[in-house]
């Protein structure tokens, strides 16, 4: 496979590119869905091809083909160079590439059980058992479960001499129960909304005790129908870990993407409220806020050996004690910004251009616990599991909804509330963080559906988080 990638690079160089790199990617994916104890879909996809990127002057070009022959690879390289020349007809500044070590290496995701070796029937049976358990609860109309697995081999070659092979394995899934009421639906999910995904094998699914939580999840969904709405107001907000993970993803992870800060995503994903001149001085949040982007965390979904530019996985401090200290970057964006390259450029398959993506952007653990946080709260609400998320194009103004909430009065969890929402402005919100859990409650949550780019790309990202409290937040916004 290295030879195919090499042919693509040589094709680009022969056509005039000053730099080229190519990835041969062979990936398979299996997705299983069960609804109300009946198999809904079993989808297996294999995607294989070559993607080559060429730089000519200030212009990039990218071409991909599913034709895995040497001639097609070379032609793809030539096409990428031709496209890069067309880019130069509407020219921009030079695109220098930050220096990185040239390596020849191999990386493999540590995993115990090859998820593709587990029989489909065993996976289907697990989801049938889970959905059956949920259906036994009165009021549950829909019980659905999903499992997905990815096995990806990538061979990367650059005109600077990189030759890197990676074998990445990702696994996960989840389930949800939906109760239908009079003009409303209520849903509860486990382990989190859209499921929990990690790097690793089938052992990651076994760890989450799917069956042991199904009854509780269904009962909560049914109970929500008769729960009162959360009243609008300002109070202390305690977020469960996976919701705090999503809060990090949306209001920190995307905001620190250097391509957004530089304006490269202005028309679609958006820009950022962050300005490079304020790196190391901007107050992002309270002193409890310590965020890292760490692509080396064992088991986290955004973990790999090298990014799709051949830069080694690394840990970068993003926010230290509340002060903004770092960005997510690639070779060209880092060079333009005068920063070291972060190794955060990845592509969604062979046929997509590598771009700045989150790795594992998470908050470092605090020294408290959920029990302690609740006990310390006089008037608040505890919200769990994301149901809706919306944030503006600068990653400032957000409104999130959760599946479930509980009032917190005088240090105790009170009655359940439905349709809990909260809204805020990013730096003001993070400045309110005043308690943070850690220990066993600190989890590497995985997001399997991060969309960005045109054509659209979906990335798998990780977000370590634990329950946290925000002192005063506007809650209970509704239509």
């Amino acid at each position: 496979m290295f030879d195919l990638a090499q042919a693509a690079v040589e094709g680009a160089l022969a056509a005039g590119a000053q730099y080229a790199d190519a990835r041969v990617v062979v990936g398979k994916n299996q997705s299983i869905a069960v609804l109300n104890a009946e198999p809904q879909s079993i989808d297996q996809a294999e995607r294989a091809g070559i993607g080559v990127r060429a730089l000519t002057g200030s212009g990039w070009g990218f071409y991909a083909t599913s034709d895995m022959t040497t001639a097609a690879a070379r032609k793809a390289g030539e096409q990428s160079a031709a496209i890069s020349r067309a880019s130069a007809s509407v020219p921009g500044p030079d695109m220098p590439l930050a220096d990185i070590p040239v390596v020849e290496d191999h990386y493999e995701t540590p995993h115990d059980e090859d998820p593709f070796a587990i029989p489909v029937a065993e996976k289907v049976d697990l989801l049938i058992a889970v959905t059956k358990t949920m259906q036994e609860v009165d009021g549950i109309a829909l019980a659905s479960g999903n499992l997905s697995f990815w096995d990806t081999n990538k061979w990367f070659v650059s005109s600077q001499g990189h030759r890197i092979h990676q074998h990445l394995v990702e696994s996960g899934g989840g389930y949800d129960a939906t109760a239908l009421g009079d003009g409303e639906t209520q849903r509860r999910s486990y382990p989190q909304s859209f499921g929990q995904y990690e790097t690793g094998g089938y052992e990651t699914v076994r760890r989450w005790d799917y069956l042991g939580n199904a009854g509780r999840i269904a009962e909560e969904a049914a109970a929500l129908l008769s729960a009162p709405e959360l009243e609008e107001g300002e109070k202390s907000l305690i977020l469960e870990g996976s919701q705090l993970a999503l809060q990090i993803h949306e209001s920190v992870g995307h905001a620190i993407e250097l391509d957004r800060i530089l304006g490269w995503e202005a028309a679609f994903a958006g820009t950022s409220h962050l300005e490079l001149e304020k790196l190391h001085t901007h107050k992002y949040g309270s002193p409890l806020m310590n965020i890292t982007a760490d692509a080396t965390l064992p088991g986290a979904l955004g973990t790999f050996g090298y990014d799709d530019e051949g830069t080694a996985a690394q840990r970068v401090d993003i926010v230290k004690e509340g002060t903004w200290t770092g960005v997510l970057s690639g070779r060209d964006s880092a060079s333009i910004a005068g920063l070291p390259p972060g190794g955060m450029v990845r592509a969604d398959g062979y046929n997509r251009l590598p771009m700045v993506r989150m790795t594992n952007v998470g908050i470092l653990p605090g020294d408290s616990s959920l029990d302690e946080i609740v006990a310390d709260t006089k008037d608040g609400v505890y919200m769990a599991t994301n149901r809706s998320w919306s944030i503006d194009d600068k990653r400032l103004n957000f409104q999130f909804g959760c599946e479930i909430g509980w009032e917190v009065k005088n240090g105790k969890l009170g009655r359940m509330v439905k349709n809990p929402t909260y809204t805020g402005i990013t730096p003001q919100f993070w400045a309110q963080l005043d308690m943070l859990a850690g220990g066993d409650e600190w989890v590497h949550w995985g997001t399997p559906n991060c969309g960005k780019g045109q054509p659209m790309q979906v990335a798998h990202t990780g977000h370590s988080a634990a329950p946290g409290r925000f002192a005063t937040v506007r809650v209970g916004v509704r239509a």
Partner: protein
Amino acid sequence: MNRTIELASHVLDTVGDRAEAEIVVGGGVSALTRFANSFIHQNVAEEGYEVSLRVAVDGRVNAARTTSLDNLDGFVDDTIEIAALQRVDENWPGLTPPLDVTDPKHYDEATAEATPADRAGKVADFVAAGPEMRAAGFCETMGHNVAFVNTAGHRAFGRYTRATIDGIHQTGASAGSGHATSKHFGDLDGAAVGALAAGRAQQGLDAFDLKPGEYEVVLAPECVGTIGIFLSFYGFNGKQHAEGQSFVELGEKQFDASINFFDHANDPRALGVGFDAEGTPRQRLELVTNGVTKGVAHDRRTATKAGVHSTGHGDPGSEQWGPIPTHLFLAEGEKSVEEMIASVDRGLYVSTFNYCRVLDPKTLAVTGLTRNGTFMIENGKITGAVTNLRFTQSFVEALTQGRVHAIGNDSRFADSEFGPGFTHVPSLHLESWNFTGGAAG
């Protein structure tokens, strides 16, 4: 012979009589030229084919897809082998019998063959329309072939093209957007789309923070496109409807009498091919007629359960997400945007919505933001720009009887939260929209 037909026929022959099977082969060339800070910074193209195979072996169903064309025989064998290990699918609807399929002729050779230089030319026109501004956006062309065959003897072939230019111009303090999509690359006027974006950006200067609350609105087609695709995905969806998660009450007057939604892939203005991934011919589907909800989309599975025929919406993913009208039209009215604005005493003109998410599918309560041009209307005139606002609004409730003041005469393909090419809609003048937050939260 077209490559997609050749591949589909090969797979069908390989399956032989070992299973019921349906095969879809799609592919061709797609290319996208992206620009930001007024230069082309990403420029991509791809060619290739994907083979999708769904088999049923004695009612045991399995589906698989591949882009690896050098081992199709192994792919077929594996797919059949895994099917045999499945449980019997009691709801397997069987294969589509041989049916006539209309070719809607949504293919344009020049679009399929557009070059990087052609796309760069449109980008240059867009950028030049906003001197002293920063431009960002994309120009895309694609030519796609689709072949369908099944073991019941049904065959269909189609091809279509799509071209889009979409972008914004930015000042230091404002942004404005423009969009155009067509099956003909030659229809795209980069300069005109760029001029609209630049005009909105210029008009957006000196924006002020407006107090949130209920405001009368005139919504540009991009906003209406997002409303339409949300109604489709969460409402006019046969699976969501059967599950009780849709707002749809068939036969009920759920919308203003002026509202007529339909889905029509064969409309001369539409995009796409004349059949779905199950081979069912697409046809006009009435969704809302004079405010009365008339139909939902079905694939073969949801149709069988509902006791009706598939409407030709068995698209990839429909087994999980449900069949969704993605050739959606809102019948246009007679008012120009200028006339609609002129009839507003105090309200807002909104260019685009952004980052819309559903709070509850049943009520279709949605939160989202305005973006790239939100303007104050006072005494029938635009009097200034306001900063982006957050809204929390039921999309269904906003269109109920008496709340639709006018429908525009400016129908076109609009961009939407789900992307371009799905909705062909005009502007709308609505009684009110619930804005729940502003720049300050």
